[in-house]
C-alpha cells in the first residue's frame, strides 16, 4: 500500500518528522517496505526562463539559448525544437545528475559553443515519456525556484505492507488513525478531497463528514448521521436492487446526469501518479482515489450503456463478462454479479465490465457503493484467479457503516470535477454491521501479552482506535475492524500501540535438575545412521522431494502428483530417494568429480505413508589410481553391501541374522543386487548395482552402486536399561578348521555357510566362505569354521565328529568335500 507523506497529512495533523512516522509505522505493525522521495533526485533542477534563442553557428538543429535560472543569464546549447525565447522550463545546472541516464552535467563545448547546463525533457527527469521537446511550465512559474518543490514532487512516497487482517489500513485514513492512536498526531475530520489538499495551510471549505462511529440500527443512512451532507438531488435514485443478499447484502447508488468526463485535475492526477497509478479519466480516477484514500471501492457505470435497472444477483452458469482488464471471464452460479436486463456489467466487488465503463463521451452515470460479502469475494477471486484493488479490500471486509459516506464523497467529487446534476439516492438492502462486543479484563494485557499497561491507558488506546469501552469494560470494536474477535485481539491492540517491543523477557519455568532426553527412538536412529554414513566417507545431500514422472517410473512410479508443479521436472512425489541422488551424481560428474559418494536421509512418499529412508549412491572410482594399488578401481555391488551392513549395524539391526534375497526391483541390475531381510518378509535394505538403463537415463555410466535403507523397518532395540548381560571371555582358545567343497551349480555361498554353521550349534561359532573359484566347470568353495571349546579342550575324536557333521550338512546341499 503506497501513499505520499502529504496525502497522509490530509488525514493526520502532526509535527512528527518523516523518520518518526516511518519508525512509528513499523512499530505499530504497519511495516514500512520502502520510502522514496522523487523530489530528491530533482533537487539540483531549477525553474528557468529562456531569455533569447539563436541558431547555433555550426549546427542546424541546435540553438544557443540564454537562460535565466535565477542567477543571471547563462549560455546553454539546446537541441529541442520547442526551445524559444520566453519559454519557462526546467534547467539542470552543471553538477546535476540527470535521473534518466545518470549523466552528470558539466560545462562543455558543444560544436565549439560553451554550454552551461541543460534544459530538460520530461523523460530526462523521469516524469513521463515525452522526449519531443523540453518541459514547458506555466509562464508565471517562479524563475530560480527549486522545480521539485514548486511542482509538489518533494513528497516522499511511503510503501507499507498491510497484513491481511487490517482492511482499515488499506486506506490512507486508517493508517492516519493508527498513527494518531500511537501518539504521532491527531486525526483530522474527514473532508471531501479537492485541490486544497497537500497544502498545509489550507482550510477546509468542504462540509465535514463525521466518521461512522458505532452505528445505531440504521445509522448508515444519511438521516441518522450527524453532520454529513449528502448531495441529494431531485428525482428518484437509480433503479437498483439486490437479489443476492448473501453475496451483496447492500447496494447503494446515486446518479449524476450531464457530466463531462475529461482528464483529472492535476492535484488528483499527481497523487495517483505518485503511487504508481496511471490517471485515466476523472470519473475512473475518482473511484481509484477513494479506494486508496478511504479503502472504499466504488464503481461508476455509463448509464447510456445500461438497459434497465441494475441488480446484484448470482451469475448464471456459463455467463461471460468482458472485464476492464480486457479479459473475458466465464462465471458460475456461486459468483455475485451486477447486471442489467441484458448483460453482466460487473464481477461484483472485483472488477467492472468493459461494456458499461465510462468514456470521454459519457454524460449520465450511476455511482455504485455496495457491500460485498468477503467470503464470496474470496471464492470468486480464487476461482477466476483475478485480483484487483477492489477484491483485496472487499475480501478483507470494508467498513459496512461507510456506504453513505463513501457514496456522498464520490458524488461530491463527480460534481466538482465533472459537473452535472445529482439524482436521488437509492439504498437496496442493508449492510451487515456485525455489531458485537466483548467482555475484556484489562489484566489480560499482562497475563497474555506480557506487558503491564494501566487500565486507563488501555481505555485511551482502544478509544483512539475507534473502540467503545463501557465503564465495566465491555468493548465494542468499530465497524471498520472486522478482524477483532475476542479478548486476545484487544490485548494485541493495546500492546501493539503501547509497544510490543517493551514486553520484558520472563524466563520459561524449567524442571529442576538436568534436562531429560527428549529425542524419540526414530530420531536417535536417524542421527546414528546419518553420522555413521558421514564417518564412512559419504557426503550428505538434500534433494527435492518431487521428481519427474520419468525418473519415478523405474522405482514404481509416484503415488502422488502435484496439481500445480512449478515444472515437469518437479512434479511427482518421489517413491525413492535414488533419482534425486543420481541427478546430483550426474551434475557432479559433469563438473569433473572422480568419486561420488552421496547419501540422503528423507522420506519416500508411498500411497499409504511417508517412509523415512536413507539412500546412497557410489559412482565413479572407489579408489583413485595409486602408486601402491595401481589403476583406479570401480565400485561394485559388494561396496554397496558393505555400506548397507555397516549402516544397519550402526542402526542396531541384528546384522548376523539378516538374509540376502534377490528381487531388489526393476531399477537394479538383475544379477548384481539384492535385499537384506530379517525373515523372509521384513526388507531392511536393497543394495547392489543399479540397472544400466536407469543410470543411462541420468547420463551416468553403468556400474553405479547404491543402497536404500528402510529405516522404519529396522526393529527398535529393546531397551533393558544400561546393564549389559554378564560376560567373561572363554578361557580356552578357539580352533579354526578349513573345509573345501565342490558345490553344485547355483548354490549360494550364504546357504552353504549357514548349513555348515548349523551343523553343530554348540561348538561352531562361525562359518565363513573365504575362497571361491570355478575351474573346469566345477565350483569350489572354501569355508573357515571357528570352533569354540567350552570347559575342556576338544579331543581329536570330538574334532573328527564335528568335521563329519560339517561334511554331512554340506552334503545335504549337494556339496562334497574336495579331494
Amino acid at each position, binding site marked *: 500500500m503506497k501513499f505520499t507523506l502529504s496525502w497522509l497529512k490530509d488525514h493526520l495533523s502532526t509535527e512528527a518528522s518523516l523518520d518518526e512516522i516511518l519508525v512509528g509505522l513499523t512499530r505499530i505493525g504497519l511495516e514500512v517496505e520502502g520510502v522514496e522521495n522523487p523530489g530528491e533526485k530533482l533537487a539540483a533542477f531549477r525553474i528557468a526562463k529562456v531569455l533569447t534563442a539563436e541558431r547555433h553557428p555550426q549546427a542546424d538543429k541546435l540553438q544557443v539559448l540564454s537562460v535565466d535560472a535565477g542567477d543571471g543569464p547563462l549560455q546553454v546549447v539546446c537541441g529541442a525544437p520547442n526551445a524559444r525565447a520566453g519559454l519557462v522550463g526546467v534547467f539542470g545546472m552543471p553538477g546535476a545528475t540527470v535521473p534518466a541516464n545518470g549523466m552528470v552535467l558539466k560545462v562543455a563545448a558543444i560544436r565549439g559553443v560553451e554550454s552551461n547546463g541543460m534544459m530538460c525533457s520530461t523523460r530526462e527527469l523521469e516524469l513521463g515519456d515525452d522526449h519531443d521537446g523540453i518541459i514547458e511550465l506555466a509562464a508565471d512559474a517562479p524563475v530560480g525556484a527549486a522545480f521539485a518543490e514548486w511542482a509538489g514532487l518533494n513528497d516522499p512516497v511511503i510503501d507499507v505492507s498491510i497484513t491481511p487482517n487490517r482492511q482499515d489500513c488499506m486506506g490512507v485514513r486508517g493508517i492516519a488513525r493508527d498513527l494518531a492512536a500511537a501518539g504521532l498526531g491527531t486525526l483530522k475530520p474527514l473532508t471531501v478531497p479537492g485541490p486544497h489538499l497537500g497544502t498545509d495551510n489550507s482550510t477546509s471549505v468542504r462540509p465535514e463528514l463525521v466518521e461512522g462511529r458505532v452505528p445505531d440500527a440504521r445509522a448508515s443512512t444519511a438521516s441518522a448521521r450527524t453532520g454529513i451532507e449528502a448531495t441529494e438531488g431531485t428525482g428518484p435514485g437509480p433503479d437498483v436492487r439486490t437479489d443476492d443478499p448473501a453475496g451483496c447484502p447492500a447496494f447503494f447508488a446515486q446518479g449524476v446526469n450531464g457530466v463531462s468526463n475529461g482528464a483529472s485535475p492535476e492535484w488528483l492526477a499527481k497523487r495517483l501518479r505518485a503511487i504508481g497509478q496511471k490517471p485515466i479519466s476523472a470519473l475512473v480516477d475518482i473511484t481509484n482515489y477513494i479506494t486508496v484514500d478511504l479503502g472504499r471501492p466504488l464503481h461508476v457505470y455509463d448509464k447510456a450503456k445500461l438497459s434497465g435497472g441494475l441488480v446484484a444477483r448470482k451469475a448464471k452458469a456459463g455467463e461471460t463478462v468482458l472485464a476492464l482488464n480486457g479479459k473475458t471471464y466465464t462465471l458460475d452460479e456461486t459468483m455475485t454479479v451486477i447486471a442489467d436486463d441484458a448483460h453482466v456489467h460487473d464481477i461484483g466487488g472485483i472488477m467492472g465490465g468493459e461494456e458499461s465503463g465510462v468514456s470521454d463521451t459519457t454524460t449520465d452515470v450511476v455511482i455504485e457503493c455496495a457491500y460485498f460479502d468477503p467470503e464470496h469475494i474470496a471464492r470468486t477471486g480464487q476461482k477466476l484467479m483475478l485480483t484487483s484493488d477492489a477484491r483485496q479490500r472487499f475480501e478483507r471486509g470494508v467498513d459496512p457503516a461507510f456506504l453513505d459516506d463513501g457514496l456522498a464523497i464520490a458524488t461530491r467529487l463527480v460534481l466538482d470535477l465533472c459537473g452535472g446534476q445529482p439524482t436521488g439516492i437509492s439504498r437496496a438492502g442493508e449492510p451487515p454491521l456485525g455489531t458485537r462486543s466483548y467482555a475484556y479484563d484489562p489484566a489480560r494485557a499482562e497475563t497474555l501479552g506480557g*506487558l503491564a499497561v494501566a487500565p486507563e491507558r488501555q481505555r485511551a488506546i482502544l478509544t483512539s482506535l475507534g473502540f467503545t469501552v463501557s465503564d465495566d469494560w465491555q468493548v465494542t470494536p468499530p465497524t471498520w475492524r472486522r478482524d477483532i474477535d475476542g479478548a486476545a485481539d484487544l490485548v*494485541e491492540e493495546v500492546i501493539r500501540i503501547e509497544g510490543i517491543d517493551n514486553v520484558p523477557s520472563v524466563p520459561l519455568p524449567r524442571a529442576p535438575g538436568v534436562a531429560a532426553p527428549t529425542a524419540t527412538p526414530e530420531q536417535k536412529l536417524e542421527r546414528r545412521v546419518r553420522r555413521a554414513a*558421514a564417518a564412512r566417507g559419504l557426503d550428505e545431500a538434500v534433494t527435492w522431494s518431487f521428481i519427474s514422472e520419468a525418473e519415478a517410473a523405474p522405482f514404481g512410479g509416484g503415488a502422488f502428483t502435484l496439481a500445480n508443479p512449478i515444472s515437469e521436472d518437479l512434479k511427482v512425489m518421489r517413491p525413492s530417494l535414488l533419482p534425486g541422488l543420481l541427478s546430483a551424481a550426474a551434475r557432479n560428474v559433469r563438473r569433473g568429480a572422480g568419486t561420488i559418494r552421496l547419501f540422503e536421509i528423507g522420506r519416500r512418499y508411498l500411497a499409504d505413508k511417508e517412509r523415512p529412508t536413507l539412500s546412497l549412491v557410489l559412482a565413479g572410482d572407489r579408489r583413485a589410481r595409486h602408486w601402491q594399488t595401481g589403476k583406479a578401481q570401480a565400485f561394485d555391488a559388494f561396496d554397496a553391501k558393505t555400506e548397507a551392513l555397516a549402516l544397519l549395524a550402526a542402526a542396531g539391526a541384528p546384522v548376523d541374522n539378516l538374509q540376502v534375497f534377490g528381487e531388489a526391483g526393476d531399477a537394479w541390475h538383475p544379477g548384481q543386487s539384492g535385499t537384506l531381510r530379517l525373515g523372509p518378509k521384513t526388507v531392511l535394505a536393497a543394495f547392489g548395482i543399479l540397472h544400466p538403463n536407469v543410470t543411462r537415463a541420468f547420463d551416468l555410466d553403468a556400474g553405479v552402486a547404491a543402497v536404500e535403507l528402510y529405516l522404519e523397518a529396522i526393529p527398535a532395540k529393546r531397551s533393558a536399561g544400561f546393564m549389559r548381560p554378564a560376560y567373561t571371555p572363554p578361557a580356552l582358545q578357539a580352533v579354526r578348521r578349513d573345509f573345501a567343497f565342490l558345490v553344485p551349480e547355483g548354490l549360494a555361498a550364504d546357504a552353504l555357510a549357514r548349513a555348515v554353521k548349523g551343523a553343530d550349534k554348540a561348538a561352531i561359532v562361525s562359518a565363513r566362505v573365504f575362497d571361491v573359484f570355478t575351474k573346469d566347470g566345477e565350483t569350489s568353495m572354501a569355508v573357515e569354521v571357528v570352533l569354540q571349546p567350552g570347559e575342556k579342550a576338544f579331543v581329536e575324536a570330538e574334532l573328527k565328529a564335528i568335521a563329519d557333521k560339517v561334511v554331512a550338512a554340506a552334503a545335504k546341499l549337494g556339496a562334497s568335500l574336495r579331494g
Partner: protein
Amino acid sequence: MTEIDDLKTHLLTAIEAAAGLEALDAVRVDALGKQGRVTALLKSMGGLSPEERQVQGPAIHGLREAVTGAIASRKAALEAAALEAKLAAERIDMTLPAEVPLAGTIHPVSQVMDELAEIFADLGFAVATGPEMETDWHNFTALNIPETHPARAMHDTFYLDGDHVPEDRERPRLLRTHTSPVQIRTMLANKPPIRIIAPGRTYRSDSDATHTPMFHQVEGLVIDKGITMGHLKWTLETFLKAFFERDDIVLRLRPSYFPFTEPSAEVDVGYTLQKGKRVIGGGGDVENGGWMEVLGSGMVHPKVIAACGLDPDEWQGFAFGCGIDRLAMLKYGMDDLRAFFDGDIRWLKHYGFSALDVPTLSGGVGAA
C-alpha cells in the same frame, strides 16, 4: 702360563676378526667345540695335581669366560649390523602420498537441526514431526485459516492431484506450507503441558534467487498455564544466544499478523556490518547496524487451541516459526540458498560438517 695367554690373544683376535656369523661359529668350534682347544684345556685339568689346579684352574676358566663373552658380544654386533643392512635396503620414499582417508560430511541443514534439538532439549522441548503431505484441515483450517482467508493466497500452496473433500482430516491434499500443522497434531495427540520444536521440510510454489520450492522450517510450541509473550521473548532470546553463541543478541519485536496467533509479532535480530557482511549480534539501531527479520511468533490463537480440543480459558501458550536454511546461512555464511539442494560435493565438503561434530551443550553447539 704363556701358553694360555697366547691362546687367549689368538682366540680373541680371531673372534674380533670374524666377518660373519659363519666365521664366528668356526672360531667357536675351534675354541669351545668338543675338539676345541679351550675344551681340551678344560679336560686337561682333571690330570693336574691339586697345586697345579689351583694355579691353572682360574686361568683356564678365565680363558673360557673371556672367549664365551667375546663370542656373544661379537655375535650381537654382527646380528645388529645384519639387521641394519637389511633395514637400510628396505628404505622407501616416505614423501610418497598415502591413500586419502575417506571423509564424509553432514549437510548444514541436518547439522543445524541437531543444534536446535540440543539447545531446546536443555529448555525441556522435545522434537516432534508430522507428515509433509498434509490435509487442508491441519495445514489451514485448524490454524484459523479458513478457505476464503486472504492469508491462504499468500502461501503459494502446492496441491496434490485428485478429488478431495476440504474438511477431510485423513487424506493428504497439499504439501505443507509451514511446519505449523505439527502444532495441531501435537495438541491433538498430547495433553498439555506441551513443549516441542518441529523441524522439517516445507513447500511453497515459489522459485527465484532467494526462494526454493522446498525449504526447511522449525516450529516451536509451548502450551501451559500462565504463559505470556514475556516467556516467548525470553525463549527466543535464549535460543538465539545459544545458537549464535553470542551474548550480545538484540531482539526487536514488531506487531504482525498470523491467523493462528494473537497477539502476533515478527522478530528482528540485530546485526552488525563487518566487511560488508551482516553478522548477527549487536547492531540494531546503531551505526553500522541494522535489523534482520528472522522469526514469526505469537500467542497461540484461542480458536486454534479450541480446534485441538483444549479449553482456551485454561491453556495458553506461544508458537514461533523460523527458516532453518536461513539460520544456517546467517550462522555459517552461505549466501546462495539454491546450493543447499544441488548436491555439489565441492559445496558439501566446504560447508558440510564432520561426523564427529556432534553438537553438545558443553562443547558449544556450533562447529567452527
